[in-house]
């Protein structure tokens, strides 16, 4: 199975094919449209990460030592990026998630979307993912 780093590199390679922003955004939008919305039971208030501009829902569960993230957004571009983050971070161990370097977003020119000032919920989502990882790690070491 691909490591977290390999998954990030894969995405970087995919984005290397695009020569302008429009191709890139079309791809994100396509992702946003085709990735299934998360189950309605996760689209609830307790999973909501409120951005001023767009909303993100995030659910995390620990299965066999790996964290499974499920997430969604009401805006397509945000959702496309949510999907990229899930691809990289989901099904990883809490340690790997805590150590994860998200520099690939910078490489593919989407780092601006992770700025808290965008208020699209993505910055808070990444923070929340790391918090989940921290919590699960603590839980693991207890048991």
């Amino acid at each position, binding site marked *: 199975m691909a490591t977290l780093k390999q998954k990030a590199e894969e995405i970087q390679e995919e984005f290397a094919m695009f020569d302008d922003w429009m191709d890139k955004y079309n791809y994100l*939008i396509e992702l946003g449209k085709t990735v299934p919305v998360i189950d309605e039971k996760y689209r609830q208030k307790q999973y909501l990460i409120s951005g*001023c501009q767009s909303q993100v829902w995030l659910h995390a569960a620990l299965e066999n030592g790996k964290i499974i993230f499920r997430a969604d957004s009401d*805006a397509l*571009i945000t959702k496309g990026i949510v999907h990229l983050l899930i691809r990289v971070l989901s099904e990883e161990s809490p340690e790997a998630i805590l150590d994860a370097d998200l520099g690939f977003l910078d490489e593919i020119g989407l780092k601006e979307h992770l700025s808290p000032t965008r208020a699209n919920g993505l910055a808070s989502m990444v923070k929340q993912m790391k918090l989940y990882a921290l919590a699960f790690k603590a839980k693991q070491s207890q048991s």
Partner: protein
Amino acid sequence: MNSQIRAQFPILERRVNNRPLVYFDNAATTQKPVRVIEALDRYYRQMNSNIHRGVHFLSQEATSAYEGVRQQAARFINAPDHRSIIFTRGTTESVNLVAHSFGQARLKPGSEVIVSEMEHHSNIVPWQLACERYGASLKVIPVTDSGELDLEVYKELLNPNTAIVAVTHVSNALGTVNPVKEIIFLAHRLGVPVLIDGAQAVAHLPVDVQDLGADFYCFSSHKMYGPMGIGVLYGREQLLGSLPPYQGGGEMIDRVSFEKTTYNELPFRFEAGTPNVGDAIAFSEAMHFIEELGFETLNKHEEVLLSYATDRLRELPGIRYIGEPHVRSGVISFMIRGLHPYDLGMILDKFGVAVRTGNHCAQPLMERFGIPGTVRASFSVYNTTDEIDIMIEALEKAIEMLQ
């Protein structure tokens, strides 16, 4: 004519994302003409000094310039006296000042404060804080489907417990121009004072606080071509003079001793600490800019832009205007059916078009319309119909990408 105006705004020459900037976020803040920028520069090069307390030349010069701006601001909104003009950091601080000081003097358990459903958070939260502190409650004038205040309900809300009414002159999210003169008239029949949030009005329509009968009128320099960090609170002198101070510090005092401090007279009693002299002096140039152009010219131009934009937007599939008030100023808020405002805004940005998306600091209003937010294009004197064409083209492209 328009090119002469544009030439006065250096920032309009900027390119963003490799495209010429189309700036349609004027309701958030307008751009600044050279004369404002130069006045600020000149102040710090030639006049900077602390005011009111200095015997020396520069201090005298800066003091009289600063006080000159106060008189100019009084004339700008036809206030009867410069003593009723308090300089603040802007609309938000003006509302907070009144909510604090008026609240302390007049709110008690059972009192009611009336605001409206279309208020900016800046004209909601200070009142909530004051209500909590004094056990008063907040009453809300609802907004109709067309984006106007429901005056019938307003009349029913007014009662002997009403302590104050605080409403906006022009809605930042919808552009609605509210009938504030009538709103004030109705409140005054019960002896209730009224605060008007003029943040979105002052750059677009001539304001006459005496004609309106406003007890308090608040606005920000940065939304009317002036610098950020300076704004005005107008208060009817008798009422303002009866209120306790807001912040304590230098300048607002008469005599200080550890037993008892007595306060300075208006307007100084509400201006604690060293004021923002430089920005006030640059703000003066912004008022001159508006006055020299004249509201007639301004309005004519904005009307052309508004009606052109409304017509062109209508061509877009799925367009829905949020709020179609009878009297509108400067702002168009819209959605495209099925598309998220944030996605639209992101793509417009890539085309160099700066609009605002989201809830416009008016979450209760968005809830009222059951929407996550809108795309808001807000126009100013330097905008052109060509720029509207660029926005429409970008929107067409965005719709194509998103659908």
